[in-house]
């Protein structure tokens, strides 16, 4: 049997006194709570200035490109570019696993969230608190990038500069289209995400890699699979890529061109004959933000050296081994 709880002290006669006692007791316990964990929350002394939480890598990139970084108070963990974003701003966690209280603790006046951010419960609580949330659609095409910039700029109250940036990006895409139209026979490109334990993960259709290969005028050799999936050695031989594209940091993990093309699967591909491996910074290549036209043109230049497309210094740096 459960022993009965200890006898409680009888309540004080006056309700006023009881109330004060209750406040004091509760406050005491809570003071302990607050004292134990010194949680920093920035105060709202900045006044009328906007406090933006950016949820989604491309959104942070656009806000920085628009020079609005001073208004950004929090970013999510996919905000890897520019690199200082996650260092100088508070992290609100992964884009799909936000905490309502965490975001609110930054006292935002605006949350700009990429399509698919969540969980919806957290977003619902944010809306309930009166925090405006701007939704930004996501797709891996040129139009989507241009549209994204305009939507983000409008939400952040910088429609003018955003329009200008969007226009510049659009023109860059148009120029890219023209260059792509002049390309000789298209090459087959295989994007290799990783080669862990001999298992090769490739970028299939509807992946960011698929999007950038299309923009760069290549044919995705792995279009038979959807998303990022492991591919068997035989399927890689069948895919017959003329070029292998990898992210630079993955490639650095012990897979030089010699090693890669020594593997049975890759040794039998057309790419092996010329040791055609392109390594580029993953964020630059797959970010689908304002830098995407440059990234696509740089990749195009590397894929089709005969076309004489100038690779930017940034691209050269990113593509450096």
């Amino acid at each position, binding site marked *: 049997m459960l022993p009965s709880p200890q006898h409680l002290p009888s309540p004080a006669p006056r309700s006023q006194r009881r109330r004060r006692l209750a406040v004091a007791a509760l406050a005491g316990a809570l003071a302990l709570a607050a004292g134990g964990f010194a949680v920093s929350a920035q105060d709202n002394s900045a006044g009328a200035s906007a406090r933006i939480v950016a949820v989604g890598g491309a959104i942070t990139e656009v806000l920085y490109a628009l020079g609005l970084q001073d208004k950004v108070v929090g970013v999510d963990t996919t905000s890897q570019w520019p690199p200082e974003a996650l260092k100088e701003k508070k992290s609100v*966690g992964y884009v*799909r696993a936000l*905490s309502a209280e*965490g975001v*609110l603790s930054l006292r935002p006046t605006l949350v700009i969230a990429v399509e698919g951010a969540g969980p919806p419960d957290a977003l619902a609580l944010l809306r309930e608190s009166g925090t405006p949330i701007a939704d930004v659609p996501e797709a891996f095409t040129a139009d989507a990038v241009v549209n994204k910039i305009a939507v983000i700029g409008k939400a952040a109250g910088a429609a003018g500069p955003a329009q200008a940036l969007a226009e510049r990006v659009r023109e860059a895409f148009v120029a890219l289209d023209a260059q792509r139209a002049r390309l000789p026979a298209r090459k087959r490109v295989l994007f290799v995400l990783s080669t862990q334990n001999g298992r090769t993960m490739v970028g299939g259709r509807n992946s960011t890699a698929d999007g950038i290969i299309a923009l760069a005028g290549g044919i995705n050799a792995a279009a038979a699979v959807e998303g990022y999936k492991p591919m068997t050695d035989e399927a890689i031989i069948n895919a017959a890529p003329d070029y292998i594209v990898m992210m630079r940091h993955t490639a650095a993990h012990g897979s030089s061109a010699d090693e890669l093309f020594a593997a049975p699967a890759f040794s039998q591909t057309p790419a092996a004959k010329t040791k055609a491996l392109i390594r580029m910074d993953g964020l630059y290549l797959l970010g689908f933000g304002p830098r995407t036209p440059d990234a696509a043109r740089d990749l195009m230049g590397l894929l089709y050296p005969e076309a004489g497309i100038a690779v930017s210094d940034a691209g050269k740096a990113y593509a450096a081994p």
Partner: protein
Amino acid sequence: MSLAIKPAAPSGVEALARLAAGRRQRNLVTVLVLAGFCLLLLLLSLGAGAFAIAPGRVAEILLAKLGLAPQALLDGREALVVLNIRMPRLLLGALVGAALAISGALMQGLFRNPLADPGLVGVSAGAGLAAAATIVLGDRLLAGMALKLPFAALPFGAFFGGLVSTLALYLIATRNGRTSVATMLLAGVALGALAGSLTGLLAYLSDDRQLRDLTFWSMGSLGGASWTKLSAVAPIVLPLVIAVPFLARGLNALMLGEAEAYHLGIPVQRIKAIAIVLVALSVGASVAAAGVIGFVGIVVPHLIRLSVGPDHRLLLPLSALGGAALLVGADIVARLVVAPAELPIGIVTAFIGAPFFLWLLLRRGRIAEI
């Protein structure tokens, strides 16, 4: 034991009485300490969070809600954080923690196996498979229907997946109106492996985003707590809590063995059926609301056994308190260490609980027999 003491030796009887009294006193202390600890954690949970609110302010908001302070306090973000974010969250944590721990203690008693946990009745495997199916295939399957939110479908999917697999397991293990716990144990392992492989297949089919959703779900979180969620979970879990006093005596008798319990007049089959159904319901609801939170169901009951012994009349309610305390405490850590982001709670429960459990094991030398 008492047979060894001769009736003519009053000192022996006194010693035994002293021993019993000492044990009762120690148990009372354990109960009070645990209850106090649980209460303290609940208050801490209300006062601590990424959003800085002065403790006095939290108290005022609570009193305002009770009509004892100016109602103006209820407007604004602070009241929202206290009343609509932290409050449902700590209550959900306490409820889920209590449900998982009671379920663990029940399963260990019923199966007379110290390694039994709530997952044994197939709930976790079934719920996991259904959740994976909802996450990965939900967009495609639900696209044609009016239901647009796979997130709303997820808890329902998990709950029914858990129930269906428990029902299947129960039917497999029941012959001639008698449920064999040994068959259930082994069939549970097989069913778990099957569900695991299908979940793996779904993980293979998933895209990056879905894979991350799956991973986060399998580590549990109280992040999505809301009053709606709480009001959906509470009615399903409460029957388990209410049934505890009625099941305790039967489980004590079952420790002797099924035949022995039957001859003591215990309705063995009915107790088995009731316990399994209640565990399936409450664990299904818990998993649906907070994802998979491992460790609580297996370790909390053992911790309690180490301190008060195996009597289910004490073990079950204390496990509830212990489970609630562990989950609420773990949640405080989960939402503070990386604030304003938060950690999945499953990481924290194991990180806090496992070393503590090992320490107790080393100190006591062996685990209490079931």
